[in-house]
């Protein structure tokens, strides 16, 4: 066993990486194909209000984050369903108001908030064992819901109006998806923090989407890619002694850029091959 694996916090970080990327592979896939990345950003920032409330009440901020995340997901969903406000208006309001509420709560709380930064920017190395159990339970829940409603989720993401005509309860499916997003936001806060949650949700699916046209394959490949890149980022942060959350995100972004170049090269190669083939046929 390599020396680094002897530390329990490293082992926990690895387990956490696998668990969150199981969740992100699924939820991120739907976020990317349904184009609701900004909703996820809004939910995660609104959740900061819950973190602040936790500090204020002196309880584990993750516990107070859960209801904030769920309620903001439902509220953004409801507000953007009507015609009065556009979806991005609803998102912006919750995004800022949640952050503001968090700041007020924290400034009202007595004393110094020592691990506030770990909620904003994440710290995968300090994850308590209890959180691993929460992550495992959520991963199981997300897998089950997706397996049960796979057809509905695909249809609503593809063409919501047609889905409604075929009898799919599209509002319920949309709400279910937003609830899954909000739960994944909560577990991701520990890893990369509120501000960067959106990157871990979208980048692995955005990378893999370029290479597959099948939702199931996209989910599985996003899980694998996300896990490898999270661990890779963690390794780099260990080597260079940098903040783990930020290093993971930068590594993800760098690989994303690289994947675009690879995709372009593959397309060129295929094109050349085809021209070569058709030239030979002539």
């Amino acid at each position, binding site marked *: 066993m390599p020396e680094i694996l002897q530390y329990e916090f490293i082992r926990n970080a690895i387990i956490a990486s696998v668990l969150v990327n199981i969740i992100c592979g699924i939820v991120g896939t739907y976020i990317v194909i349904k184009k609701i990345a900004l909703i996820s950003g809004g939910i995660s920032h609104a959740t900061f209000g819950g973190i602040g409330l936790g500090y204020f009440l002196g309880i584990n901020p993750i516990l107070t984050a859960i209801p904030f995340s769920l309620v903001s997901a439902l509220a953004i969903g409801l507000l953007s369903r009507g015609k009065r406000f556009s979806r991005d208006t609803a998102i912006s309001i919750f995004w800022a108001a949640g952050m503001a509420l968090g700041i007020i709560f924290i400034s009202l709380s007595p004393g110094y908030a020592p691990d506030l930064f770990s909620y904003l920017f994440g710290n995968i190395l300090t994850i308590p064992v209890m959180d691993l159990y929460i992550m495992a339970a959520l991963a199981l829940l997300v897998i089950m819901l997706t397996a049960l409603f796979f057809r509905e989720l695909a249809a609503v993401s593809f*063409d919501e109006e047609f889905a409604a005509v075929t009898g799919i309860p599209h509002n319920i499916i949309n709400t279910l998806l937003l609830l899954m997003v909000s739960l994944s936001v909560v577990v991701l806060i520990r890893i990369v923090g509120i501000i960067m949650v959106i990157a871990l949700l979208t980048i692995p699916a955005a990378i893999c989407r370029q290479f597959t046209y099948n939702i199931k394959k996209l989910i599985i490949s996003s899980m694998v890619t996300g896990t490898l890149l999270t661990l890779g980022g963690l390794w780099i942060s260990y080597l260079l002694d940098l903040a783990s959350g930020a290093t993971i995100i930068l590594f993800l972004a760098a690989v994303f850029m690289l994947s675009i170049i690879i995709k372009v090269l593959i397309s060129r190669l295929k094109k050349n091959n085809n021209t070569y083939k058709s030239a030979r046929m002539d």
Partner: protein
Amino acid sequence: MKKIVELKDVYFSYDGVPVLSGINLDIEKKDIMAVIGPNGGGKTTLLKIILGLIKPAQGKVLVFGKRPEEGRKRIGYLPQNPDIDLGFPMSVYGTALMGRYKGPLRRYNNADREAVYEALELVGMKKMAGRHISMLSGGQLQRVLIARAIARKPELLLMDEPLSNIDAGTQKSVYELFLRLGKKMSVVFVTHDISAISSYVEKVACLNRKLYYHGPKEGSLGRLEGAYGCPIEMIAHGVPHRVLKSHTGD
């Protein structure tokens, strides 16, 4: 003829602006009907009311003798310029299969697969079943979406601007497709493009907030074609080339 859709005195408005007023419309079995009207005339709204996607402010809507939400199981629907992301991970086959949705927790079976291949065959897209939708032309995608609508073997096919993504060259073959479909089911489509009304259409209704019905009483356009000795592609509500009666009461 048996009525399959019945609208009686239907009113609808968006934010106080009337979109539909006093609409009466019957769709009968084996109808091939076109509803024409300007943009904003309420055509899409009319279809959505029949589909039960929106509720009329007033009036009665019966679809196969039931509420639209129940009756729409027997309708196939082709939305207007559907907001489909061509990069979406979905094949031609997968797209058409969505038309076969039966309900939660009910998997697709062999009958569904057969119905999808049959529908793709009918629109001439069976050979491309395995392709990703980003590889299709606008006209091919439209055919796939028609296949999705007819995969559930509907008794009525509602189409919203079915020719909008199709260039003039392929329009004829799409019309012939409508004609073939018309033998199996009632076909109703709405369009703002009056040149889309060809001799294939048997009944025409004009919609601009109010509906003016030009039923078979005025002779099917097919028969009119015989009378005029030319394909009728234009309907003149004005004087020069009157084919249909003028509207009264407006």
